């Protein structure tokens, strides 16, 4: 038991943790998520200019026309850009903070859509814009219709 007088802090802060759980309905995007589970990358296509987009859009922003056509984008693409993050960020599958060894990349798929992904090659200096990449999927039983169902994009020979 200390005999010192405890000083009240001039300014008090208090923690207020709260957990918020959302129940999202994917709706029309379910087709994309199911596609991922099946090992396919599907994108919506604008009927006016043919642009394919991932994530899927309900309308094309430029023409405001309902996009109902889905196009399989194939399994390969070309590297557009890559970066590695040097600080811990949350893993949305596990909810945990972690470091990320694999660079995040933008890939332009055979079908024309561009998407985000991870690269198998961990050394960014070995990555060149335009290099050919192939999707490496999680085992089928682990796929959840999430972005990381495509575990990595692997550089392959032309």
């Amino acid at each position: 038991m200390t005999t010192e007088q405890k000083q009240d802090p001039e300014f008090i802060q208090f923690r207020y943790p709260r957990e918020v759980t959302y129940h999202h309905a994917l709706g029309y995007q379910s087709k994309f998520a199911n596609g991922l589970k099946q090992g396919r990358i599907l994108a919506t296509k604008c009927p006016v200019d043919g642009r394919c987009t991932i994530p899927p859009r309900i309308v094309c922003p430029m023409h405001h026309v309902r996009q109902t056509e889905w196009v399989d984008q194939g399994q390969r693409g070309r590297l557009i850009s890559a970066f590695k993050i040097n600080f811990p960020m949350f893993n949305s599958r596990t909810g945990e903070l972690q470091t990320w060894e694999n660079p995040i990349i933008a890939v332009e798929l055979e079908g024309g859509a561009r998407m985000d992904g991870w690269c198998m090659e961990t050394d960014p200096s070995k990555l060149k814009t335009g290099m050919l990449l192939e999707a490496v999927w999680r085992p089928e039983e682990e796929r959840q219709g999430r972005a990381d169902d495509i575990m990595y994009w692997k550089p392959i020979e032309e």
Partner: protein
Amino acid sequence: MAGRVGIVAVAQTKFEGKTLDKHTAELMYDVTRDVMGQTGLEFKEGSIDGTVAASYDLLSGPAGAYMFLGYVVGAYQREDERVLEDGALAVYYGAMQILSGHCDTVLLVSYTKESAIDKNLYEWVGMDQIYQRRVGLDFVSAAGLQAMRYTTKYGITPEQCAKVVVKARKNASNNPNAMCCDSLTVDDVLRSKMLCDPIRVQEAKPTPVDGACAMILASEDRAKKITDKPVWITGLGTCYDQHDLGWRELADCESLTTAAQRAYKMAGIKDPMKEFDVAEISEQYSYQELLWSEGLGFCGKGEGGKLIDSGKTDMGGELPINPSGGMLSGLPVCVAGMQRAAECVLQLRGEAGARQVSGATKAVAHGVDGPAGQLQCVITLEN
């Protein structure tokens, strides 16, 4: 240059408990395309100038949800702003955009999926974090406190409150978009479980409810070109009350009285009971219809109970309140205020089907946000 502001088209989804097969964007798209189809307007220069949305990000998901939804309501390279309040405030602001001369034609959209998150949780977060949240106050308990104070001070009976619900559900049976139209008796309501004394489960707005609403506003000249049945916004008023419940006289709704006065002054309304033909108000709990009636000037202070007993606010009465069934028949928060205005528009265009108040020429729409109606918004309309 602006003249009056006209509402030229309205649309709403069918309100349902859980739209598990639809993404939020689909609800927004359906109502947007509906009003565009009605008017032939498109997202291009000289047509729709901008969009005003009303929604809360916290209800949609992560921080910044609207960024990924704006494109659905035509925000591509076009002006769009989002009101973080009940949809009635979007109607208020959309009208201001036109009255300022900045825009000629504005699309308004309001959307909410209550099924995505526990309503009580986010409303609890809406209380100030230091004093009220820490004692567990949320909007339900705030309403409970107000209901207790109001009914005690003025001797409003449980039967009078229950009558509000009975009327609401009966009216809703005429409304194809309404969610709940079961026929209830006063006994049914009073026998339902206590939710938050003195509010019973059947006296609270059903939840969750998902849905969206849209309308197109235009300047006077434009409105007359777009439709031969424009509905004019004649008065606008909002008002904030105190937040801490202890600072308020909960038995009165001063902020609503003030908001109503602001709107009525603009519109030249002196005797609301006589001059309005229909009222669509936001009553999340049964006692609120009685209390808001007082604030809107339909009756004197403390006379809300007598008003419902008189039958004047029933269908066929002097001033039917909520022919659509109101919030008590199932409307999402945030969408509610805009949908109230949309219902008034349908009434004034003679397009309200089985719930039509015949010969309606003047209407009042009302929206609310915050605990126990802290922020009130009143919009008066005429055809």
